[in-house]
């Protein structure tokens, strides 16, 4: 079942999307019929106007799901399963052409040469200004000025098309031919192109760790793949084109020797530390600008027009070749599309961090699979399952070990013959430490249970200790005044601020997290119970006194039930806060739990798993809250009616 779902998620998604659209339309129709075609009894502003409206709920939910499907490319993948592969082939072409495009106005607004000239001129200007206040003598300054002018002349030489070498002109012409060959290839059509068996055997889109199959599986894809091979050859040719103008050779040699002279002067001359460093730095920056010009990367602008035009032709051919596919991509694949980087193609934009709903379900099913050996669970622990657990373990957890220490007598000592006979005190210790066999019981375990268990234990402790204290604080001057500082000092500190301290003290075991959550729950329970108790109507207290109730009876029969609504609301709030704190605590330290899974998923950028944990936490938190709301409704129906 899990495997089937995993392999056919495209089909499942297609069915889901179809039903969602149908559901959406139907709910819209029902909503329209009920709101427009029936006369209303309520006027605007009447709270009654918000009651009912289940059809809008369906509308909203299906809209949300459809938006999710859309932005995660779920719709695209469901109905165009090979689209990502095609986009990958286009991305291959783009990747191959990117170094050429980056140097042309077609891809980057300016010629790279124009930008280089602008930058070098700006740097030369500023360095020339620096010269006046520099550590050089008048004579040296004159020499340096000449040097700067020579460097400028290099730019002038390489910007003039007359100075282009024959070799460079030939290479440029060759590149234009190669680019046109790519265009021709793209325009040659997809007839006769069939994918290889190896390409077809690739895993489907999104089913494995490699997102998108890289080898082309459609004729269109093969066309672009072939184009990209040609394009990358053109790109390697482009890398070799340099503008080493013959006219600049002499100037370059002169400059090289000039700079060497300057460097030597700096070496030999006796300057004080600051001046010397200044001189060295100045010559170094001059040399840096010179080296850049020596590279031959500045071309006359009009010499590259041919390449620019070829690229424009190629872009035109690319669009023609893509045809309708480009429109499909714009409609169903929001974002910048697919990008190829070195060895793999990946989805970009919202699809990158928003996994498709079916992928989330598949990941959840895999996580929820209790069979660890077949790849279920996470890090060797299932999400939620049961196992036989020895009873002694529970006993050992709850019975403190010092009980044995207080038992009269001594622990056993080994005899002369090396034997040890255990006495009653030893047996009690075994009992308290859980080292005695008492049978086994089925118990829940797994990441989810661990998280829930921590919250439950902390909540039980918080309620059992916090509610009585809160009630007493609500009725007794001593309790109120004595415990107020304690509660009020630790409560305003955000639980996450306590977490590092408490987790350091207790380590990564459950104790620390439970204690942290207990602190959270305890403060909330104390405050809510106290508010509830002190909010008891005086007349009720007086009435019960007159009816002959003792103080203890009043506490239990009047003040407690009166505080119950506040207490239950407190529990509801505390569970929510505990749940939030727990996840953070598990992220900080832990080896199991939903927060732990999310943290590990984060480190490997496993977006699907991150979303699964987020959804699990959201749904569980919602379930807690719904349960508490039902409980409140059933236990305190008098609430707000007293």
């Amino acid at each position, binding site marked *: 079942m899990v495997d089937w779902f995993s392999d056919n998620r495209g089909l499942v998604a297609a069915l889901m999307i179809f039903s969602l659209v149908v559901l959406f339309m139907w709910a819209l129709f029902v909503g329209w019929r009920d709101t427009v075609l029936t006369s209303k009894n309520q006027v605007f502003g009447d709270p009654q106007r918000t009651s009912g409206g289940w059809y809008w709920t369906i509308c909203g939910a299906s809209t949300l799901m459809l938006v999710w499907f859309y932005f995660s490319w779920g719709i695209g993948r469901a109905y165009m399963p090979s689209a990502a592969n095609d986009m990958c082939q286009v991305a291959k072409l783009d990747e191959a052409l990117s170094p050429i495009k980056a140097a042309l106005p077609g891809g980057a607004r300016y010629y790279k040469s124009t930008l280089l000239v602008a930058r070098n001129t700006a740097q030369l200007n500023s360095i020339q200004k620096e010269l006046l206040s520099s550590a050089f003598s008048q004579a040296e300054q004159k020499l340096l000025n000449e040097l700067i002018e020579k460097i400028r002349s290099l730019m002038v030489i390489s910007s003039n098309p007359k100075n282009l070498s024959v070799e460079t002109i030939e290479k440029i012409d060759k590149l234009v031919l190669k680019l046109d060959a790519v265009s021709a290839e793209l325009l040659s059509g997809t007839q006769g192109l069939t994918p290889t068996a190896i390409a077809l055997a690739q895993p489907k889109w999104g089913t494995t760790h490699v997102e998108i199959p890289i080898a082309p599986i459609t004729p269109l894809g093969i066309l672009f793949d072939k184009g990209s091979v040609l394009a990358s050859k053109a790109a390697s040719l482009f890398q070799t084109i340099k503008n080493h103008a013959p006219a600049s050779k002499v100037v370059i040699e002169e400059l090289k020797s000039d700079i060497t002279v300057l460097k030597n002067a700096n070496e030999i001359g006796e300057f004080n530390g600051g001046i010397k460093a200044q001189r060295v730095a100045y010559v170094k920056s001059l040399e840096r600008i010179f080296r850049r010009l020596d590279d031959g990367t500045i071309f006359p602008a009009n010499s590259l027009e041919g390449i620019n035009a070829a690229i424009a032709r190629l872009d035109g051919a690319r669009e023609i070749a893509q045809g309708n596919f480009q429109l499909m991509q714009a409609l169903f694949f929001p974002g910048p599309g697919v990008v190829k980087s070195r060895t793999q193609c990946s989805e970009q934009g919202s699809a990158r961090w928003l996994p498709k709903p079916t992928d989330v379900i598949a990941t959840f099913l895999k996580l929820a699979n209790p069979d660890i050996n077949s790849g279920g669970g996470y890090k060797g622990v299932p999400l939620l399952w049961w196992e036989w657990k020895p009873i002694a373990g529970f006993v050992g957890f709850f019975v403190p070990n010092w009980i044995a220490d207080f038992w009269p007598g001594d622990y056993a000592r080994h005899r002369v013959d090396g034997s040890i006979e255990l006495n009653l005190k030893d047996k009690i210790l075994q009992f308290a430490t859980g080292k005695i066999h008492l049978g086994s019981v089925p118990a829940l375990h797994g990441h989810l249970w661990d998280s829930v268990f921590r919250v439950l234990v902390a909540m039980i402790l918080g309620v059992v200790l916090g509610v009585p204290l809160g009630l007493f604080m609500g009725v007794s001057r001593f309790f109120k005044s004595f415990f107020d500082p304690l509660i009020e000092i630790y409560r305003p500190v955000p639980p996450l601020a306590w977490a590092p301290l408490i987790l350091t003290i207790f380590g990564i075991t459950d104790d620390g997290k439970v204690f942290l959550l207990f602190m959270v729950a305890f403060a909330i329970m104390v405050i809510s119970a106290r508010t509830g108790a002190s909010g008891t*109507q005086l*007349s*009720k207290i*007086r*009435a*019960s*006194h*007159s*009816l*002959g*109730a*003792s103080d203890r*009876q009043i506490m239990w*029969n*009047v003040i407690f*039930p*009166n505080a*119950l609504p506040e207490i239950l609301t407190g529990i509801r709030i505390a569970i929510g806060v505990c749940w939030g704190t727990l996840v953070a605590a598990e992220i900080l330290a832990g080896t199991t739990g939903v927060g732990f899974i999310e943290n590990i998923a984060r480190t490997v950028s496993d977006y699907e798993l991150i979303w699964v944990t987020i959804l699990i936490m959201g749904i569980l938190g919602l379930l807690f809250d719904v349960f508490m709301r039902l409980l409140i409704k059933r236990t*305190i*129906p*008098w609430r707000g*009616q*007293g």
Partner: protein
Amino acid sequence: MTDLVCEDLSMTFVNPSTGFEVEALKDINFTLKKGELLTVLGPSGCGKTTLLNMIAGFLRPTSGKASLGGRMIDAPGVERGMVFQQGALFEWLTVSKNVDFGLRMKKADPEKIKKLVEKWLDIVGLQGFGDTPTYQLSGGMQQRVALARCLVNDPSVILMDEPLGALDALTREKMQSLILTLWKETGKTILFITHSVEEALLLGERLFVMAPRPGRIYKEYHLPFAERGLSESLRDIKQDVVFTEVREEILTMIWDMEEEIMGRG
């Protein structure tokens, strides 16, 4: 005899922040014989409720003492039942659980409790409502529960603090008849506080008009209307000439007091 006796009862409140002293009550002296129905009337702030709270044992007098049947009152007790303005019912309990609250606290025999509760629910006209949650009852019914809850404990004195103040006129009249009936049938001593002159006249066998600053008994009346109310319609009594005269007299009295307060304030 279980007479309620107040001797030189005084109460002074001190405002904790300003230190300002208010004489809520000063030298209250009266004896309420067993079976008497006393209504207490007066402008707001004249110490009616303070007096009641002291007799109930919720407040200690600054000086003087109150005693019931010769025993000094220093704490709340079952022998002095209370009925409050809002009923002060326990809304988390059903009607019968409210009524038997006192008996349950005493740990009385469950069989006996059941019988008593049924009897009293019958008397106050709530038969069949035993299992209804109290928050579902109307104001009048809630006050019936409060009455039953108090009476089931068999107190010697019933202290009522404006019990009908929050009810509508019609319910109020029905409840007034009920109180008169209960008074006659049980023979309980009743101390009834109200701010309605008509009610005080209708129910009070004796009537105290109290005056404020310091709170004191201004005038006492002995009235025939409560006796008559047992057999006659209350509406007819209200038409009575004597009734109207006394009512106007008391109203003028209270108006004068109020004006004096306003003038001083």
